[in-house]
């Protein structure tokens, strides 16, 4: 097999860029900013090249690159993308330059370190999505925590230390279980294949042959780790703290990409590696997902802090994604995949908007605002637009994801119970409640706080950050085929892998 170097370039670009940042004089802050932005744009361009060369009709891994690493254990630096990971790679490379641009003025201390960590974070995230070796995946999975830890811990709010440690330990705890399961699976492979391997493609063949009881343990270890990342109710309490304390860029990446690693992991590992267990646990996990949808929405509704409200809305949104994944039919899983992208865009935009206003007023208390639609009309429009996308208004992106997920889960033979959907669909009502209520209290009514009269509307730079996101919000809403067809074949493959034992079981 011939190696394709595009993905190594994709990973090397932020790495080399990040290292080079360290050599720039720390006082040349603008140079650092422009350099960081340029690097992230180069990464974006590389990912676009991959996208245009990608063959949608082939659902398997493409752009493969393998480099033998630890030969005794058959561990290699093995990377590639399929329809699922490609979309998430694109989301990552798309959001990173925007977050750098959004931090242009809000990050004014330690700009050099910040840019370095952001690029390392990008490297870590991309690594997670392109790894085809479980050991390599694990390394990236863990390594990515470090820059995030520093981003929250250094540039965060008042309680940043508590939040960053909570974030770190929570996720670390889950990861350790996953590591045990990875080793166990690899050891199991050595008895069935005759050699120890962490090659994902080979493990895909081994996984389903693991006896059900052992498979259950492995599934739970993986699922637990991913559920923390998602976060699935009741493992979500790290999220609001991390979000509220993180700087805007951190929140955007956290919500936009990091949470997706959990749902990506479920789709990439849990379902195809442990199909029988996935099916047995699907109802239980879906119950948690549905609780998350309603619970997240209700708790979001009563928040007084704008950022916390958006953070809790993530719990609800990701609940939809998990429900879609475990409904295990084409409609629902395709919906889940598109909803991962949607959440990155909508919630990313909301966090950016909260950041924009926070930078001006230094408060996120909803009650401090009111009537600002009159003072900052462009901002008010942008906030409404992002909220409506998050609410799932048809014609915008959120609807496509939620609709497909609910449609699929309703007829799912794995869940085989319409009540999951009935309850989940009620989340549609609550989403309208908490977002419109927030919007009303911020934008409508009379101006209560005289300070708000001085508010400046969005700058050109801020609009430039949001415009690309809004374009995709409409694009996905009106013509989702562009994205759905990228992942369709891959999702079909994953479902086939799950269905084979399911059908045998039904017989």
């Amino acid at each position, binding site marked *: 097999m011939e190696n394709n170097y595009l993905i190594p370039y994709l990973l090397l670009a932020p790495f080399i860029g990040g290292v080079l940042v360290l050599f720039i004089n720390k006082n040349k802050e603008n140079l650092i900013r422009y350099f960081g932005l340029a690097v992230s744009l180069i990464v974006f361009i590389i990912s676009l090249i991959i996208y245009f060369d990608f063959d949608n009709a082939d659902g398997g891994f493409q752009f493969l690159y393998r480099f033998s690493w630890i030969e005794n254990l058959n561990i290699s630096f093995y990377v590639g993308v399929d329809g699922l990971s490609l979309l998430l790679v694109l989301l990552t490379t798309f959001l990173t330059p925007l977050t750098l641009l959004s931090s242009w003025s809000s990050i004014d201390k330690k700009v050099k370190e910040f840019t370095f960590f952001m690029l390392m974070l990008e490297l870590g995230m991309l690594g997670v999505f392109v790894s085809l070796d479980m050991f390599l995946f694990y390394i990236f999975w863990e390594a990515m925590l470090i820059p995030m830890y520093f981003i929250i811990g250094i540039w965060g709010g008042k309680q940043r230390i508590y939040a960053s440690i*909570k974030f770190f*330990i*929570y996720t670390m705890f889950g990861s350790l279980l996953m590591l045990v399961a990875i080793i166990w699976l690899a050891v199991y492979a050595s008895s069935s294949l005759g050699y120890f391997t962490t090659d994902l493609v080979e493990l895909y063949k081994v996984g389903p042959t693991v006896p059900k009881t052992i498979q259950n343990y492995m599934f739970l270890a993986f699922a637990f780790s991913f559920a923390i990342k998602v976060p699935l109710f*009741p493992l*979500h*309490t*790290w999220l609001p703290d991390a979000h509220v304390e993180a700087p805007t860029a951190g929140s955007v990446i956290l919500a936009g990409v990091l949470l997706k690693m959990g749902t990506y992991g479920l789709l990439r590992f849990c379902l195809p590696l442990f199909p029988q267990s996935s099916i047995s646990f699907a109802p239980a996990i879906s119950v948690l997902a549905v609780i998350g949808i309603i*619970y997240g929405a*209700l*708790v979001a*509704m*009563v*928040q007084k802090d704008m950022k916390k409200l958006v953070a809790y809305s993530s719990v609800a949104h990701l609940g939809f994604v998990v429900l879609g994944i475990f409904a295990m*039919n*084409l*409609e629902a899983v*395709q*919906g889940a995949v598109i909803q991962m992208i949607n959440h990155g865009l909508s919630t990313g935009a909301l966090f950016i908007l909260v950041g924009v206003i926070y930078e001006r007023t230094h408060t996120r208390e909803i009650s401090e605002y009111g*009537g600002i*639609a*009159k003072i900052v*009309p462009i901002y008010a429009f942008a906030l409404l637009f992002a909220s*409506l996308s998050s609410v799932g*208004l*048809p*014609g915008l992106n959120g*609807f*496509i994801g939620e*609709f*497909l997920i*609910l*449609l699929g889960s*309703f*007829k799912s033979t794995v869940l085989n119970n*319409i009540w999951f*959907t*009935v309850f989940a*669909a*009620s989340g*549609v*009502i609550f989403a*309208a*409640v908490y977002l*419109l*209520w927030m919007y*009303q209290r911020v*934008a*409508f*009514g*009379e101006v209560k706080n005289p300070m708000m009269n001085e508010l400046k509307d969005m700058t050109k730079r801020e609009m430039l950050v949001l415009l690309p996101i809004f374009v995709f919000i409409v694009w996905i809403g*009106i*013509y*989702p*085929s562009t994205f*759905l067809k990228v992942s*369709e074949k891959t999702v079909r493959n994953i479902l086939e892998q799950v269905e084979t034992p399911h059908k045998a079981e039904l017989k």
Partner: protein
Amino acid sequence: MIQLIYLSVILPLLGFLINGIFGSRIKNEKVIGTIGSGVIGLAFFISLLAFIETLSLPVDQRQTIVELFTWLNVASLDVSFAYQVDQLSLVMALVVTGVGFIIHVYSIGYMHGDKGFWRFFSYMNLFIFAMMNLVLADNFVLLFLGWEGVGLCSYLLIGFWYERKFEKSTTADAAKKAFIVNRIGDFGFLLGMFLIYMTFGSLNFNDVFSRTLAFNVDTSTFNLIALFLFIGATGKSAQIPLFVWLPDAMAGPTPVSALIHAATMVTAGVYMVARCSIIYASAPAILTLIAVIGVLTAIFAASIGLVQNDIKKVLAYSTISQLGYMFLGLGVGAFSAGIFHLMTHAFFKALLFLSAGSVIHAMHEHQDIQGYGGLKKYLPHTALTFLIAALAISGIPPLSGFFSKDEILWYSFANGSLILWLIGAFTALLTAFYMFRLYFLTFEGKERFGHDKHPHESPKVMTIPLIVLAVLSVIGGYIGIPEIFSGEHGNLFHTWLAPIFKNTERKLAIYGAHTHLEEILLMTISVAGAALSIYFARHVYLKNPHIAANTAKKFKKAYNILWNKYYVDEIYDASVVNPIVKGSDKILWRIADNKLIDGLVNGTASVVEVLSAKLRKMQTGVAQFYALVMMLGIVIALFWIILSL
């Protein structure tokens, strides 16, 4: 022109974009208003040409689907941005763009000088865009786009004056309420769609409706689908129990009320049920439920309308009541009668609201009819058009309302039961009474307003639309003259829509054996009743005002219940809204999230911390202590070895 029907959808969108993006810079009201109404006028023109073209086609070829591009294509789901031109969608498109256009023109005068002039027109255009998607969609998902879209536009327009107070709260509250109550209905509609997809494997109208006939599906599934969809309709079309948003919708500018109440939005539920008539024909139990909900809503809302003093509020409750009639019609299987009433109602209700707007305009935003009186002298055109509309809604022949309302009442008797007819007919009397209470208190009698007000007739840009609507309210009924009067021509409107409801009627197979004599008898009763009600209203409110006051005093309790609208808002707040908000705050957020879950997480952390603090104490750094521990260890180890030997 049929093939270009999508232009009638896209033009309003274009208007929205132009005024939305450049409106604040254009500043010139004439330009903005011309663009805003122009696009709607063009959309009407295109719909009209499509109508004429369809008319020239043979009856069995009057359905055309114009597909733009694929929207969602996953598994067996395949829906497009595709518009279906047929008899039903054309009627709706003509009403929406026609009445919509008149309201737009009127708004140029009404909104003159408002600093949000451009914003207003761009929202109104978006409203029409959403509504056109709703009525022209060839599938449920696109219909839902319009369905939610009108919800959004109503949110934007009801809250248009977002810094103003409205009753006990703000206009923004009213806007939010409208959106959320609608979303509750949408939730039902979504579930209906899911069940349809699960049952029939498609969400395109033609597929679903043909499979409804072809597939062998049990009645309980049909009942459930029909019920879910109807929940959606109760939200959009303001029926019990989800009507509560509509009265508050008057918080927006008056032309918005006209648009929401007459041509768009509230008609959506009626249209949807009519569109899905074949599904409802397969679920007779739900059809009966619709008739019952319809007639109950009709009388319930009419009774509230009897005592309200806000001119727009009376009209709002009359809308709810009239929508109840439409559902009564649908529920007894008279689908085309329901649509017919939808159309005539669009004329006279738009006229009522716009006339009311003209009055409010003249009275400097004052809306309480107690402060009106004798306005005929100052607003002659408005008084006349309001009178025409009031006569039409009261069902006085030969105005349009007479034909459509009477058709529904007749079918409620012929296909339904005497009790449905009785309640419906009684509601008609109430309607005539409160409409003329409104008319007499506003335009006739003594002036009850202060000298600070100098009422004057509205400009031509407002009165001409009133006159056009008045003409429509008068003659609009002639296309639906019942057979007993028109003889061999039959009911034109009915004949036009017949192909749409052909299968439905075959399935329902209601052929009540009733005579023309019965029909004429019932008609005479309701018309005479309405006429008497008008006379009675004149007697009470014009000639002997003390009667009204005395009656209110005498039946204080009943009056209070009506005045407070049966306390429905209060009951909803106490039983649903507050428990959810308080419960989420006090229980979910403060206890479950902060104490329970986070307590567990941080608790685990503190336990580890405490234990490690204890363990750390062992690391004293004193060498003697380490030596002691080492010695003890060696001793214990030695003992162990010796004992195990």
